[in-house]
C-alpha cells in the first residue's frame, strides 16, 4: 500500500483565506459606504450654506418705484468663506435680464415658490455647486420674476473628503488587521480538535482498536462514529481470524498426534529400510506441522492476552530453570547443552504464561539452528532493566535481514534447509512489546546469535 495520503488543499488555509478575504471585502465595502455617506453629509453641509446665502439675497430684493433693487447683504458671501478659500460666483436675473453677477453661470430653472434648486456644474474650468431660487415680486405696474443663483467651488469639500477618505482608510486597514488576527485565532481554534484527534490516534499502540472516548465537536461526530465503527469491525474481524486460526490449529493438532502415534507404531513393525526411512520422514513432517500449529496457537493466545495482561510477580530465574528442565530431553536428543547463568533472583511484574511461551519459542528456535554438540546459554540479568539473553553457537543472523526477522512468517536466508513457521521471533517480540519492552537481535563477535528479551 502507498503510505502517502492524497492531499488536496488545506482546511486551515481555506478557512483562513475565507475569513481574511471576507474581512478584506467588508473593509473595502465599509470604506466605500462610509466615504459615500460622508460625501453626502459634506455636500449637504455646503448645500445648506448655499441655500442660506441664496435666501438672504432673495430676501434683500425689493421693488421701489417699479425698479428692482437688491441690497446684497454682506453676510451672503461672508458665510461662504471656507478653509480652502473657495471661489464664489453669483447671478441676479430679473425675468430674462441679468441684473448683476456672472452672466454665464449655469443656472437651473427653479419654481416660483422660493424652493431652492441645487445642481453641480462646471464654471470657468472648476466644478461648482449652484443654488438657485426665484421669487415673484409685484410692483406698481407689473409682476416680475427675480432669480438668484449663488455658486461655490468645491475645493474645501474635496479637502474634507480627502481627509475623511484617509481616516476611513486607516480605520478600514485597522479593522482588516484585527480581522486577520481574529481569523488566524479562529482557524487555530477550529482546527485544534482535529489535531487532537489525530494525535490521540497516532499515539495509540498497534493493537489498540478501542473506540475514541474523548469528547469531539458535533461536526466531527460523524467522522469519529465512522472511525469507531470501522475500528470495531476491524477488531471483530481480527479476533475472528485469530479465533479461526487457533481453532484450526487446535483441530489439526489432535489428529496429527494420532497420526504420529500410528506412524511410530508402524515404524516398530516395519523392517525394510526404505519403508522405515519414509516413515521417519513422515514423523518429522508431522512433528513440524504440529509445532507450527502449536506456534499458531501460541501466537493467537499472545495476541489475545497482550490486550489483557494478567501480571503477577515472576522470578525470571525460576522461570528459565523450569523451562530448561522441560526442554533438556529435547536438547539431549541433539547433544546440545542448555546452561543457565544468573545472579540471584530477578522478580518482575509480568504475565508468566506469556513469558514462558516467548522463551520457549526462543530456545526452540536456537535448538533448531545450532549444530549438534554445542551449547545454548540463557542468562538472566536483573539490572538496570530485567532481561534474558539467549546465546547460541550457531551460524548467527544474516546481518542484512536482522531488522525484518521478527516480522510474522519471516525466515532467514540461511534457514532454507531447516523446517519452521517463522513465528518464533514474532511471538517473542510481541510478548516483549506487550510488557513494554523489546526484542533485539545481535550477532556475537566470536560467532553465534544472541537474542535479548528486554522487559
Amino acid at each position, binding site marked *: 500500500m502507498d503510505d502517502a495520503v492524497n492531499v488536496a488543499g488545506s482546511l486551515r488555509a481555506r478557512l483562513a483565506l475565507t475569513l481574511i478575504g471576507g474581512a478584506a471585502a467588508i473593509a473595502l465595502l465599509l470604506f466605500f459606504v462610509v466615504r459615500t455617506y460622508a460625501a453626502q453629509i459634506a455636500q449637504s453641509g455646503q448645500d445648506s450654506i448655499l441655500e442660506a446665502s441664496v435666501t438672504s439675497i432673495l430676501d434683500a430684493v425689493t421693488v421701489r418705484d417699479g425698479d428692482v*433693487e437688491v*441690497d446684497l*447683504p454682506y453676510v451672503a458671501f461672508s458665510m461662504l*468663506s471656507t478653509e480652502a478659500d473657495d*471661489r464664489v*460666483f453669483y447671478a441676479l436675473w430679473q425675468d430674462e435680464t441679468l441684473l448683476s453677477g456672472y452672466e454665464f453661470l449655469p443656472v437651473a430653472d427653479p419654481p416660483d415658490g422660493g424652493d431652492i434648486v441645487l445642481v453641480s456644474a462646471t464654471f*470657468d474650468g472648476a466644478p461648482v455647486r449652484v443654488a438657485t431660487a426665484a421669487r415673484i415680486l409685484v410692483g406698481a405696474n407689473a409682476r416680475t420674476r427675480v432669480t438668484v443663483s449663488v455658486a461655490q467651488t468645491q475645493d474645501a469639500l474635496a479637502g474634507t473628503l480627502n481627509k475623511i477618505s484617509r481616516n476611513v482608510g486607516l480605520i478600514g486597514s485597522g479593522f482588516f488587521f484585527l480581522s486577520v488576527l481574529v481569523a488566524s485565532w479562529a482557524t487555530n481554534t477550529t482546527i485544534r480538535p482535529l489535531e487532537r484527534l489525530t494525535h490521540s490516534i497516532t499515539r495509540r499502540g498497534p493493537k489498540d482498536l478501542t473506540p475514541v472516548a474523548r469528547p469531539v465537536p458535533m461536526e466531527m461526530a460523524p467522522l469519529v462514529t465512522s472511525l469507531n465503527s470501522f475500528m470495531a469491525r476491524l477488531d471483530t474481524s481480527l479476533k475472528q481470524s485469530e479465533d479461526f486460526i487457533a481453532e484450526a490449529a487446535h483441530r489439526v493438532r489432535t489428529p496429527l498426534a494420532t497420526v504420529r502415534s500410528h506412524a511410530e507404531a508402524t515404524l516398530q513393525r516395519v523392517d525394510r529400510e526404505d519403508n522405515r526411512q519414509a516413515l521417519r520422514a513422515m514423523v518429522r513432517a508431522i512433528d513440524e506441522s504440529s509445532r507450527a500449529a502449536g506456534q499458531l496457537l501460541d501466537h493467537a493466545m499472545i495476541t489475545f492476552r497482550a490486550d489483557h495482561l494478567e501480571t503477577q510477580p515472576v522470578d525470571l530465574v525460576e522461570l528459565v530453570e523450569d523451562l530448561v528442565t522441560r526442554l533438556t530431553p529435547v536438547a539431549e536428543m541433539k547433544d546440545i547443552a542448555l546452561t543457565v547463568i544468573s545472579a540471584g533472583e530477578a522478580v518482575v511484574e509480568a504475565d508468566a504464561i506469556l513469558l514462558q511461551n516467548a522463551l520457549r519459542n526462543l530456545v526452540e528456535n536456537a535448538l533448531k539452528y545450532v549444530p549438534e554438540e554445542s551449547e545454548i546459554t540463557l542468562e538472566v540479568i536483573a539490572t538496570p532493566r530485567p532481561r534474558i539473553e539467549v546465546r547460541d553457537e550457531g551460524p548467527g543472523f544474516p546481518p542484512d535481514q536482522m531488522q525484518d526477522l521478527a516480522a510474522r512468517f519471516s525466515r532467514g536466508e540461511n534457514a532454507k534447509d531447516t523446517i519452521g513457521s517463522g513465528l518464533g521471533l514474532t511471538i517473542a517480540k510481541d510478548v516483549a512489546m506487550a510488557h513494554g519492552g523489546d526484542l533485539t537481535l545481535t550477532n556475537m563477535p566470536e560467532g553465534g546469535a544472541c537474542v535479548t528479551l528486554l522487559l
Partner: protein
Amino acid sequence: MRYIIALMIWLCPLVATAQEWEDQNAFGPASADTTLRVLSSTDTSLFVPIIEDFLQERPDVSIEYFVTGTAQIDQVFRAAAEDFDVVISSAMDLQLKLVNDGFSLKVENLDQPQWAQWRQSLFAFTTEPATIVINRGAFAPGAVPQTRQELIAAMRARPAIFRGRVGTYDVRESGLGYLFATQDARASETFWRLMEVMGGLDARLYCCSGAMIDDLVAGELMVAYNVLGSYVAAREDVADTLEIVLPSDFPTTMMRTAFVSSRTEVEQEAAAFVRHLVEVQTGPRNPDVFPLPPLSAAVDETGQAVISLEPALMTYLDPLKRKTFIKEWSSAVIQ
C-alpha cells in the same frame, strides 16, 4: 504721402494702447532675458528698494513698473491681462474679485497664514490703517480729535475754519477710497454722519492719498479723512506740519496685496518676485531701507482688526449694491 501713411500705421498701435500712467519706470539691465511687467497702485518711490533688492538676486531680470489708481488697475488689467505679470494694489476687494474670477496663478512654496493670503494666489504684504491727517495749525495742541465723533464735533464747532478745507477720497474714482468707505459704513453709522458734516463743509474730493497730503502740506486742507498714514510717514518734510491720528473708535486697516497674472509668460520670475516681496515685508528688515509698512499680525496690540480677505469683499462690488452706496454717499457728501 507714403511717409505720412507709414507714420500713421506706425502710430496707430501706440494710440490704441495709449494709457496714461501716473508713473512708469524701468529697472534692471535693458539686455535682460526676461522683463517683468508690474502693474501697481503703490508709488514708485516706496517700491524702488524692494525692486532693487530683487534685481540684485536676479540680474537676468528687468522690471517695468507701471503705477495707476486702484480702480484703473482693475479696468486695465481686465481688458488686457496678458500685458502684465504681477498686479499689486491696495484695493483688496478688487484684487480678491480678480483672483475669484480666475485672473491669477497659484504661487507654490510661499507659506503665509490663512488671513494673509487667499487661494495661495493673493498675498498680503503690508498692513496699513486708514488715518485722519490734520494740519497742526487748525487745532490747539492737546485738542486734536482722536475719534470720528470728536472730529465731527470739532468741525461743527468751527465751520468757518473748515469750510472748503476738509478732504477725503472720491469713492467714485478711487478703489481704495471705496473700500475704506464701505468698510466704515459697515462698521458704524458714525461714518454717514461724518460724511454729512464734511459734505456740509463743501468737502474736497481726491483720487489719491498723495494729492491730499500735498494739499495738507500746502495749507489748503486742514483735515483729511481716510488717508494712508504710511504715505505721510514716508514724507520727511511734513512731520512739523501734519499729525497722523489713528481713530480710536474703530479702525479700518487694509493690506496691500499682490498676485501673479494667469496670462503671464514668465510664471517662474513673477512668482519669484511675489515670494521675494512677501519675504522682505514679513522678515526682519530695516525700515530706513524699506519704507513700506510691514505685514503685521491680523490683530495688533491696539486691537486693530484688518479687513479680512474673504469673498464677502465682493459684496460692495456688485453693480446694484455699488449704485445704491454711491447714491447714498453722493447725497451725503455732494449736497
